[in-house]
């Protein structure tokens, strides 16, 4: 294949990664922004979304599209409920202290991982794509489902943005993010806001996982990469900045796609890590983060 079409293919693959990464990282960014909690277990909520999607694909009869549609709705809800429970049972008791919650979410990571290993097993299992469609370009053919992943992720992110900027719930979350004590002085139940935010962050990771699992496979150790890349994206974009997170996800996703296609996936991770190092040295608050 010539260079031009090859680059186009790399960019399209990178765009799929960027879309999924933007969803996952925006969940992590939202949780840090509103709660000041660095959620080390975020990747495990991603994994739970994928594993739950596999279970749904086994239990729901009929064509794969039906099971997929059910998974896209039910799995994020299950994961969100689990996250809200974790917040109320663990993080709330630690008063959402930043250092304590890092340790607590490391513990949560292992609990969720081992629970998945026990219930789901060590195998990597495929989940069928909801539809088979091939997009035929003059130079190569491409999966139509991947185009759907990009579109679905963009739609969810648009919905998230509208929720944050146009709804009462979004206003409450932004006020809590700015000053939780003053928010409380105006009748906002910060405990509920935190539980809701933690649930929403986990649900976004689960949506990303349900979307990607027909391309990858569900596995109990699959949470590591999304967690690492999400941290990279959130640090580059600026902790708590949704706009920064989206732009950084696009940057990292595309560079990952191009470098992985032309060179090696490992080199892509090295470049991403180098970018984080540069940002931490020259602009520690990230591209769009507020200076401390």
């Amino acid at each position, binding site marked *: 294949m010539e260079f031009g079409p090859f680059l186009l293919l790399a960019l399209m693959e990178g765009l799929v990664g960027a879309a999924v990464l933007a969803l996952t990282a925006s969940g992590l960014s939202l949780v840090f922004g509103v709660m000041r909690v660095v959620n080390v277990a975020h990747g495990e909520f991603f994994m739970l979304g994928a594993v739950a999607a596999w279970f749904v694909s086994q239990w729901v009869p009929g064509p794969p599209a039906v099971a997929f549609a059910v998974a896209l709705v039910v799995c994020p809800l299950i994961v969100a409920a689990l996250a809200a429970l974790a917040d109320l049972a663990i993080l709330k008791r630690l008063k959402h202290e930043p250092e304590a919650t890092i340790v607590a979410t490391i513990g949560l990571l292992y609990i969720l991982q081992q629970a998945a290993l026990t219930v789901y097993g060590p195998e990597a299992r495929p989940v069928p794509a909801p539809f088979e469609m091939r997009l035929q370009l003059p130079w190569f053919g491409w999966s139509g489902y991947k185009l759907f992943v990009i579109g679905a992720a963009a739609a969810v992110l648009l919905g998230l943005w509208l929720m944050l900027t146009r709804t009462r719930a979004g*206003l409450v979350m932004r*006020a809590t993010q*700015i000053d939780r*004590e003053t928010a*409380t*002085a*105006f009748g906002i*139940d910060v405990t509920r806001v935190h539980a809701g935010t933690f649930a929403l962050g986990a649900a976004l990771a689960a949506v990303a996982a349900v979307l990607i699992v027909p391309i990858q496979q569900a596995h109990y150790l699959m949470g590591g990469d999304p967690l690492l890349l999400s941290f990279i994206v959130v640090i580059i974009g600026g902790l708590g900045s949704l706009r920064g997170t989206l732009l950084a996800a696009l940057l990292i996703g595309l560079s990952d796609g191009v470098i992985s296609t032309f060179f090696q996936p490992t080199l892509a991770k090295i470049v991403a890590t180098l970018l984080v190092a540069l940002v931490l040295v020259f602009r520690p608050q990230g591209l769009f983060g507020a200076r401390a």
Partner: protein
Amino acid sequence: MLTLDAVDAGFGRALVLRGLSFRARPSEVTCVMGRNGAGKTTMLRAIMGQVPVSAGRITLDGQRIETLAPHLIPQLGVGYVPQGRRLFGSLTVAENLDIGLMTRGRGRATRDRVLDLFPRLRERLGQTAATLSGGEQQMLAIARALCLEPKVILLDEPTEGLQPSMIAAIRDTVRTLRGMGVAVVLVEQRAEAVLDLADRVAFVETGRVAEMVPAADLGPEAPQFARYVGV
């Protein structure tokens, strides 16, 4: 009526309020004066549930509030304008008001009534709070608290650092609130402001109200100002 009876409050063993008793009645401005560190701000924060109360009781119209979760206290009609305003700086003026309206206000009617008091804010509804002038920010802080339709409003040094025209506007607002039947608790350090506005004055010293006197009994040279405030 807001009542504090023998309240101890602080963090752990570090008590700031020690047996503080205080009353604020509807349609009255009760000024709170005292030196830095006397416990004025802590008193307001204890009323709002932001500082733990370890002894005594705080009641609003007979209902105990110091045992409630802090977010339930504004729902009963206690508005708070903290020191330094603490606006939601990246939110617009309209969004700051909406935060106040969510809990107790009657929507558009309340907002219109509040904006009638502060017409300048009406022109800046779409502007982010952080970009307002100091005086406008203070107006917004008070307007946001009024969106709660409060029975009691706690104002912590609202004229601090403002130019004279803004100070006059805020004093007019305090008089209007008194006329509306609101119990106003005003932490203030300037004797002339207190004499101009107050119905009663509470002098706070080392975490308790040392004297509570009608403002009419105080003159510019009243010895309490020198004794408790140092002016």
